[in-house]
């Protein structure tokens, strides 16, 4: 079983957006089976075209944009970065957004490669 530290997020995130949006970390579950890692993140209000998932070397970036729903509401960005172990096959990561929840499957085996992942809906 992999040490939790390998899936730990960075302690600090100084990301700032150019349009002044607040950046918030979504509540995320990280699970592991023999075949894959499973990452599930709550991003209510995020729609498919606002979600980005990108694996670069050993860092997995998960981001979702949320537009304000009324005048007093804020626009913000859900953002979280995970350091993933080498044993992830970057080419086989899948992402699905449904009902404001983003689910990522990270199959094990193979070398990590920089890879943009397409997000499916439904």
């Amino acid at each position, binding site marked *: 079983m992999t040490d939790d530290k390998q899936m730990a997020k960075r302690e600090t995130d100084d990301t700032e957006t150019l349009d002044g949006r607040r950046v918030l970390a979504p509540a995320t579950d990280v699970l592991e089976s023999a075949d894959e890692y499973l990452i599930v993140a*709550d991003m209510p209000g995020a729609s498919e075209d606002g979600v980005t998932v990108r694996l670069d070397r050993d860092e997995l970036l998960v981001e979702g944009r949320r537009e304000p729903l009324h005048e007093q509401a804020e626009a913000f960005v859900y953002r979280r970065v995970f350091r993933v172990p080498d044993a992830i096959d970057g080419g086989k990561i899948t992402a699905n957004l449904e*009902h404001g929840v983003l689910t990522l499957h990270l199959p094990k085996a193979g070398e990590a490669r920089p890879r943009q992942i397409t997000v499916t809906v439904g």
Partner: protein
Amino acid sequence: MLTRWTRRRDPWLEMYDLMKEMDRIFTSAGPPSAGRARSWMPEAWPPIDVTDEGDKVVVRGDLPGMTEKDVQVTATRNSLSLAGERKVDVPEGYSVHRQERPAWKFSRSFELPTRIDVESVRASMKNGVLTIELAKHAEEKPRQITVKAS
């Protein structure tokens, strides 16, 4: 600095003095996990936003992972009830490194300070956000008053 996304303040508590809220809350915590970071606590209920938008009151709630089938919305002339449940189960064969997403089972009633038109209440869910539009009763709608010079 990672900021936790938390429940927003409920504006009704600030806007209206006469407000009775009956909450029957069943807090169900997810399975305990060594990976749960100390700053992530299970919510007692999901965040709710209430806004007065002139001729209607709009209630919004963040309910990620829930569909219209998981939520019950009941409205009377002067009250609104929301109930729902979200389970967060660990699938077979998986171990947990981190469990931050809370499970909910909530049942909550609001007494509304303005009378609403029950027939025209609309509720919908999109991207895990519940939106309930409650049109105000005709007599409660704001009316523009002309100021005359005298």
